[in-house]
């Protein structure tokens, strides 16, 4: 009640002086204009010159590429490496059209994309995790699929206990979900009833607390609070991945139009160097140097 009276009084003062009626819209317009220019400045990206390198593509590779670019720029002052997201397909498109010097993909190239020059810079495994108290140790890929589709809804067939399975997944658009969709689900949809979390860490947190849950996370982030399942009898170890026995693995690819030259080649060589490759394990990835050797 009181505040309403106050408002009316304030309004009255402004209306009494006719000058303000002209000033107000003017200021309003000016401020709008100012903020718009401000926003357009933010969205502007630095232009490309001879000393800059544009990398675009998979959002799964992006955070790692960001780090590599940072180290690279520290070593070579004056060079600008601009890492952008967009997804694997967008990255492939960007290299084709020349919008990016290097494309990033976290999936194998399709037949009609093989015209691009591909360099594998790292590998990432995907672990299916359950609560440590869960007696299940191994599932087939088909069983995992049925659980995530929502056809199998209790642990009964695996443990004999009639407990509802809590399915935990990542949000739409995340690279980890994309990889799981592609490697396990194929064309089938993940059940709507699945609990959705927006990071590998929270998926692990929930699975480590709920004895009836199952989820998937990047292999490098598995720790003792959760139990990784063997798939078709193969545990997700680095060795099994190197021998290609564990199937839930995706490559991190760098793509160029033709054999890389100049700054692009310098950056790729840098990522493949001992210095970066030896750091991969710390970040949860698997080095490709060992794959080759």
């Amino acid at each position, binding site marked *: *009640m009181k505040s309403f009276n106050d408002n009316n009084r304030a309004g009255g*003062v*402004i209306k009494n*002086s006719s000058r*303000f009626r002209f*000033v*107000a819209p003017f*200021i*309003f317009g000016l*401020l*709008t204009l100012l*903020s*718009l220019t401000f926003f357009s400045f933010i969205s502007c990206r630095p232009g490309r010159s001879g000393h800059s390198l544009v990398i675009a593509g998979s*959002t799964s590779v992006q955070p790692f590429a960001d780090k590599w670019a940072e180290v690279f720029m520290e070593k070579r002052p004056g060079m600008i490496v601009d890492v952008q*997201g*967009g*997804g694997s397909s*967008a990255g492939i498109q960007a290299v084709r059209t020349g919008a990016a010097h290097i494309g990033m993909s976290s999936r194998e190239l399709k037949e009609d994309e093989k015209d691009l020059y591909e360099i594998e810079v790292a590998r990432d495994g995907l672990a299916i995790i359950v609560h440590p108290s869960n007696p299940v140790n191994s599932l087939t890929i088909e069983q995992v699929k049925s659980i995530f589709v929502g056809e199998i809804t209790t642990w009964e067939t695996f443990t004999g206990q009639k407990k*509802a399975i*809590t399915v935990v997944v990542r*949000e*739409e*658009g*995340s*690279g980890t979900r*994309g990889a799981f*969709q592609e490697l396990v689900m194929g064309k089938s*949809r993940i059940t*709507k*009833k*699945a*609990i*959705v*979390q*927006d990071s590998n860490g929270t998926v692990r947190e*929930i699975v480590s*607390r*709920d004895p*009836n*849950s199952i989820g998937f996370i990047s292999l490098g982030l598995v720790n003792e609070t959760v139990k990784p399942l063997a798939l078709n009898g193969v545990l997700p170890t680095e060795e099994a991945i190197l021998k290609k026995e564990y199937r839930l693995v995706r490559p991190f690819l760098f793509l160029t139009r033709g054999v890389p030259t100049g700054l692009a080649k310098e950056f790729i060589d840098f990522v493949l160097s001992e210095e970066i490759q030896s750091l991969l394990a710390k970040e949860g990835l698997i080095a490709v140097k060992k794959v080759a050797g």
Partner: protein
Amino acid sequence: MKAKVKLERKDRLIKLSLLVVAFSAISVLAIITIFIFEQGTPIMFKYGLKSFLFGQDWYPSEKSFGLLPMIVGSLLVTFGALILGVPLGLGSAIFLTEFSHRRLARVLKPFIELLAGIPSVVYGFMGLMFLVPFIRERFGGPGLSVLAASIILGIMILPTVISISIDSIRAVPDSYREGSIALGATRWQTVRMVVLPAARSGIIAGIILGMGRAIGETMAVIMVAGNAADIPGSILAPVRTLTSNIALEMAYASGEHRQALFATGVILFVIIMILNTVANVTSARQRKR
């Protein structure tokens, strides 16, 4: 005379600068509104308003943008928060103004207001650590549920409901109470039949503000609601609200997925506008009486 002119000029200058400040706040609101609608409406018309409002499948990667589960989710969780928060809040307000010792009220009220200062992520974390396991073990289900989100939000709206209710109950003139008691009514009868009806518009305003807080809350809800994009079958099932939908998927969304998240924002905007209008109309009607 000269001094007066100088003062008047100074006065005008201050008025002008205050006007600038006021309009800059409004222009931010205008920019946000224009931006959300400009980004969100094209995709709604492209795929049809109906598929957004009544579609039950949210699979943006397959161009399926049904927001019904999130609309239902937001309303359910908000309603749940009100069921828990309003009786508790109103009860506390009545106790603190009408029944408790003045000194006790003076000690308790700051503590209640302190509740409003706790960051929402802390509420979410406490919910995840204590409430979710409790629900999972006692009632079954994953624990991340409509119930967990409603309880957390019910607590979060308490300070808003309590302080505004206290203010409006205190604003009721003492002569009303004295008159009622003189007529032979008991203290509780006085509260129920005289004080509460007199304070009604203020109390409703408090509830509306609490509702606004509940429907807009994001962080705490993401942490305890489970975020399944499905219409919950029971209060123990996970649920996703409109705000969580935007916050969860904004990070990697691009193209139409991103636009669909802006469309989520448009729908949230419209729902909040409708609720506010209904609230304003009802409280204005109350005031007329």
